[in-house]
């Protein structure tokens, strides 16, 4: 080695993005990237594009270049961060343990604040969704009610019949087609705020009901509560909780994510639970990282955030690692499993779902080739980057087809919708269904 040979890189003219990036980027983390390239084969967009800049190593280099004041054209960084799925498969592959997800969120925030110029309707939608709907449980319910009205009043049929749906882009149509039936009430309205353990109590779990989960996948939330009660947990569903903030954090709205996090911490702290149950990998991963999200807050807040983060577990972990429930019922079908990226790469929950599925008597479990790779859903990625998401989904569905499974299981609402859309698009609707793992277990165990 010859350190003195360090090369000088050309500096860019001062610009707002570079300055903001220098303030926000966790530079220690960025330096931890030793550019070994182990992340390249793990990255879905690198595989599609084959270009260094579309890899985690390339994106970290771009973010670092901005923080170093070398980036001349901020658009470069915005485009690359938008193209990133945020699936964090690179973190699992990284020998140096770089927290790519954290750098990505910091990058997104800097771009959002100092550069991104959305078209006016995107701006309105973002403001509406991020500021006025997702943070408020009641408003989410109203939205759920509106969708339910759309689905049940005949409006949906009318829209489809009149061909109005064709006015929307292809990928929106595909999503509309698989939208589950929604309801205006959430899990706590349906089951109450306290559901006692069946049999001997082994602990108290606070149920994180989520925003989308609670309106679009109410049944899954209800089944989660029932399964946990069956496993011996008292289940509390704190009323004051709200959206986890993952969509905000992943889309450059970190400050709003922090506000949501603080409120959730308060709600669960008051309930004084042993565990906090998540049934959505996308939410769980952020909930588990509230301590990182809030690490520039005062000491009390940081302590509470650590208290919270340390208690968050995925439902499959709670059943397998913390309860003695082993009878997973029976089902006579062929099943396969598509992992949730944030469950696997964020929460590091890899084996538990496989084990639970293999415990269902009578069911034949077939592994999905590259089931650990992202399906292209990635939060709202499939809506904002439809082309790349479509390419990834097409490859995924080819692997799914080869399993000849009756049931494709997943563990996150976004993935579930994407898999439903994928099945629909691949013309497999009459042969295959997509189900959340909790719903499949409830079905196998005949939970009413």
């Amino acid at each position, binding site marked *: *080695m010859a350190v003195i040979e360090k090369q000088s890189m050309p500096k860019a003219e001062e610009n707002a993005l570079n300055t903001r990036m220098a303030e926000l980027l966790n530079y220690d983390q960025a330096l931890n990237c*030793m550019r070994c390239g*182990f992340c390249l084969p793990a990255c879905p967009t690198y595989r599609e594009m084959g270009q260094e800049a579309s890899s985690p190593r390339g994106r970290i280099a771009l973010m670092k270049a901005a923080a170093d004041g070398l980036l001349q054209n901020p658009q470069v960084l915005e485009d690359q961060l938008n193209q990133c799925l945020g699936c964090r498969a690179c973190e699992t592959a990284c*020998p140096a343990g770089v927290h790519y997800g954290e750098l990505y969120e910091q990058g997104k925030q800097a771009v959002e604040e100092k550069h991104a110029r959305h078209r006016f309707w995107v701006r309105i939608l973002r403001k509406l969704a991020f500021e006025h709907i997702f943070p408020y449980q009641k408003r989410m319910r109203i939205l759920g009610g509106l969708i339910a009205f759309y689905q049940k009043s005949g409006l949906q049929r009318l829209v489809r019949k009149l061909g109005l749906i064709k006015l929307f882009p292809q990928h929106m149509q595909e999503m509309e087609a698989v939208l589950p039936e929604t309801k205006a009430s959430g899990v706590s309205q349906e089951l109450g705020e306290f559901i006692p353990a069946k049999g001997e109590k082994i602990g108290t779990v606070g149920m994180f009901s989520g925003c989308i989960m609670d309106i679009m996948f109410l049944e899954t939330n209800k089944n989660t509560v029932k399964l946990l009660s069956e496993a011996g947990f008292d289940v509390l569903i704190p009323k004051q909780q709200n959206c986890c903030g993952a969509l905000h954090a992943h889309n450059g709205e970190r400050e709003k994510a922090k506000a949501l996090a603080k409120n959730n911490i308060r709600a669960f702290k008051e309930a004084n639970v042993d565990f906090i149950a998540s049934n959505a990998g996308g939410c769980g991963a952020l909930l588990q990282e509230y301590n990182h999200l809030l690490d520039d807050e005062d000491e009390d807040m940081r302590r509470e955030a650590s208290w919270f983060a340390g208690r968050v577990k995925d439902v499959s972990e709670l059943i397998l690692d913390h309860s003695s429930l082993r009878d997973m019922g029976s089902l006579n079908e062929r099943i396969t499993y598509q992992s949730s990226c944030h469950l696997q790469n964020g929460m590091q929950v890899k084996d538990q779902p496989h084990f639970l599925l293999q415990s269902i008597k009578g069911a034949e479990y077939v592994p999905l080739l590259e089931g650990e790779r992202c399906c292209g859903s990635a939060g709202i990625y499939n809506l904002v980057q439809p082309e790349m998401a479509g390419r990834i989904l097409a490859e995924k569905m080819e692997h799914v087809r080869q399993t000849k499974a009756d049931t494709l299981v997943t563990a996150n609402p976004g993935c579930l919708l994407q898999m439903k859309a994928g099945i629909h698009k691949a013309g497999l609707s009459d042969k295959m269904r997509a189900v959340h793992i909790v719903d499949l277990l409830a079905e196998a165990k005949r939970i009413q």
Partner: protein
Amino acid sequence: MEEKKITPEIKKQLLEAAGTDNYFDDEESLLAHSYDATPIYQAMPEAVIYARSTRQVSAVLKVADEHRIPVYTRGSASNLSAGTFPLKGGIVLVMTKMNRLLEIDEDNLTATFETGLITKDLHDAVQEKGLFYPPDPGSMVVSTLGGNIGNCAGGLHGLKYGTTKDYVLGLKAVLPNGDVLETGGKLTKDVAGYDLTKLLVGSEGTLAVITEATVKLLPAPPYKRIMLAYFDDLFAAARTVSKIIAAKVIPATLEFLDHGTIREVEAFAGIGLPTDMEAILIIGQDGHQAVVDEEIEKMTQICMEEAAEVKVAENDEDAERLMTARRAAFTALARKKPTTILEDATVPRSQVAPMVEKIVEIGQKYDVEICTFGHAGDGNLHPTCMTDARDEEELARVEKAFDEIFEAALALGGTITGEHGVGLAKAAQLEWKVGKAGMEVMRGIKKAFDPHGILNPGKMFAEETRERVVLD
């Protein structure tokens, strides 16, 4: 060489030669090709070109040569020698899209491929046919075979199976003037002229752009076993290595972790390693079951003479567990500090213990953190320094420490680099190993292949050789 800039006129010619879809000079591409996996080094290229075919590479080189534009050929840029970063600007020629496996010839036991093929992909493909390509550098999930050939990559199997140079039989390579050179073939014996194949292996992209290669394959060993031994004395571990070889057993792997590495792996992975031990040997054998079982038994006996504890894996799961320590070594060290400098000073096998001792001593002298692990069987050690590139004062000490480590390796009959290559990182010390005469011959070879010096300029041949250090 006076480097020329890519003028609009030259760009036009390059676009025509490369194809418009394969030529990039936007900021994103240039920044993302300004580095390789060597800490600290970075420089901006002027253009990035994706190689698509031998013919296209030939056309590109012709233009570059005519206008004296530097060409830095790279695969996945996972090298640790600052071997591919574009020191003097010019073109970065990326090989990763030339990645077709052209043929696995089961009659001749060879594989032929384009050099952008990922090493692991070749391993998987030949394994499916019951065959085996032994070179397995630590980076094989991402490294390209072209990179392996350019740097003569080693891996865990060097002792029993040799390194990349022992497997490459034939090459297709493009010279700077655009001529295509074909060397060797599917031949075990071939003495027609100088061995240009071997000359190009390890030439680090300074002589030609290798676009295709044919390598030798072996039948896959049907059976494998792993064992592990703890030692509370470094020299006892080293003596054990020598005794194993003296007993006429050549293990497939013979890996080593020193005290510092054991401590760091345990702190990181918590797998129950005894942190008071001075060394761990991880020993593997492969082949026919009867032979493997017999040799594992023999090695167990030898290890027990001086080891504090010996463990033999009874099944695959066990083996997996025993390998965790070795696999976690790099990870554990890489996570400790922001900058990880992984070196590859190599000594004759018999000198491993004195070398490790010397490394510990040098680390203490300069107050820098250096742990050593590596391939004890072939004397290839990886002294690994954990530091922070922002701390210039410490970096200066790190640099001095490594100069002494290289000098110590040379004094023990070793070399400055066993498997990573010279690149820029060791260019200033190359003469220490090969001497003035060696440098002169190499300069002559360079001139014969690349008279205008457009291939990987600034690498291998330093403008100035560093002054040798004097060991105490």
